[in-house]
């Protein structure tokens, strides 16, 4: 018997369509309700989280203001050196201090001689010599006496020792090296004694000398002080050439025609430091990019 199609009456069709619409509507409503529920749950969770965060923030701020907490030093973390150097040997400590963690270009410690007095090469040489001698002797003595002296007496004692070391340098320079040297040392009479209280020496005593043996300490002190002196000499040369048009008192042909006196002031010192630091960061970035390129190939 052939299958006969039964014609669905229009009224039934309408009923079916209405039921379908109803089901769809119900589903849509349920979905909307669920979504609303989820939203409200999420909102509640968010509110709770925000409250928690606000509470945490308040406690963090309170702890920060009271000085209990040291937040992660972002600026310092960005300046981390690429390569970790082994500082337990003389050579490793020297290289780390001289190149990878140069005190004046990476940590910006002890900038007073560079900014305040580093506007001529003569000043640069005198201050470099004083820094190298002072830092080497003080850190070696600190390393030898580490453990035998309470930590709270370390800074005062080593600062007095540093000032005793600077004293003969100034005395000999003023009295036994001729007239021209006398005037140079006289102009430095306020700034040369500041080498004794330079932050660089104290920071190396606390961070390195008190926890290392003599030989690595000697390497670190020489590396840091020679690195510092190299930067001081470079910046003082630049400032003298561009600011006065001379180098070591002698006229430089092209630069002697104009003088940017602003560079001999502290503002000029900061400016030159900024340019040197930017140049070094630029070179480091290029080196990093080349390294990455080499590894990729």
């Amino acid at each position: 018997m052939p299958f006969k199609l039964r014609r669905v009456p229009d009224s039934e069709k309408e009923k079916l369509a209405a039921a379908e619409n109803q089901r769809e509507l119900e589903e849509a409503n349920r979905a909307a309700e669920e979504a609303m529920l989820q939203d409200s749950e999420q909102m509640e969770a968010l509110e709770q989280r925000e409250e928690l965060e606000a509470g945490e923030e308040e406690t963090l701020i309170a702890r920060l203001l009271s000085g209990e907490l040291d937040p992660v030093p972002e600026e310092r973390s960005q300046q981390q050196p690429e390569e970790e150097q082994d500082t337990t040997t003389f050579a490793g400590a020297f290289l780390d201090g001289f190149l990878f963690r140069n005190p004046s270009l990476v940590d910006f410690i002890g900038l007073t001689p560079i900014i305040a007095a580093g506007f001529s090469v003569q000043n640069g040489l005198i201050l470099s010599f004083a820094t190298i001698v002072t830092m080497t002797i003080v850190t070696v003595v600190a390393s030898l006496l580490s453990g035998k002296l309470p930590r709270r007496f370390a800074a005062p004692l080593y600062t007095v020792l540093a000032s005793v070391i600077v004293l003969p340098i100034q005395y000999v320079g003023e009295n036994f090296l001729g007239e021209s040297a006398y005037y140079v040392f006289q102009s430095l009479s306020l700034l040369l004694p500041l080498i004794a209280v330079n932050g660089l020496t104290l920071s190396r005593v606390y961070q390195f000398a008190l926890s290392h043996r003599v030989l690595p300490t000697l390497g670190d002190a020489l590396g840091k002080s020679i690195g510092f002196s190299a930067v001081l000499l470079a910046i003082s040369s630049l400032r003298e050439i561009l600011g006065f048009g001379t180098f070591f008192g002698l006229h430089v042909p092209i630069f002697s025609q104009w003088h940017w006196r602003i560079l001999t002031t502290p503002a000029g010192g900061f400016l030159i430091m900024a340019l040197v630091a930017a140049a070094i960061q630029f070179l480091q970035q290029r080196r990093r990019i080349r390294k990455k390129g080499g590894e990729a190939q």
Partner: protein
Amino acid sequence: MIQLWYDFLYAIILGLLTQNLALAVGVGSGNLLKLSQKEYIGKLRYFFCVMLAICFSATLLCYLLDQTVLQFNDAKSPFLRALRPVVYVAVLAVLCIVADFVVSFFFPKVRKSLGDLLASACLNSGALYILLLNRQENGGLFESAVFSITAVAGLALSVMLMRALRERVELVRCPEFMKCAPLALLATALLSLAFMGVANLNFPYL
């Protein structure tokens, strides 16, 4: 009386603006860059309180020592004159030890939070420079004391200005090699230039 007021005003302007330690003279610029970092915000008030107390008391002590025992200004021997910074550093060192004991005894939490920063608050270039400048200029007791206070206040002012400046400067879009330290140094140079604008400020005698 007028002379006293004149000295007082002159010492304030000298310490805060014209001889501002970090920005106009360049002494303590390492401290300026170090203390204007985020991690030192909570410790700044303690640092400057200790430094203020040390500088003030060291100024008084050095003045008394100069006038009574040492009399450096009249010393004919060049060695005695060269010995002056050593004596000043020794005074600062003794005061540093005293400050360490006092702060540890009365404010142990502050001592703990300051750590090694206490030593650098007492023994820094700024403190020694204040003492040396006071003696070189032959300042009186009152003038020297006021200058020591205003010089430390000037350093605090420059650190706060620098911190505010660095917060804004860190948001600036700039080439990668200029970020962090070079930008901070550039901002310091501009701030220093602003202070140079008042370097020759001189008001006539009243």
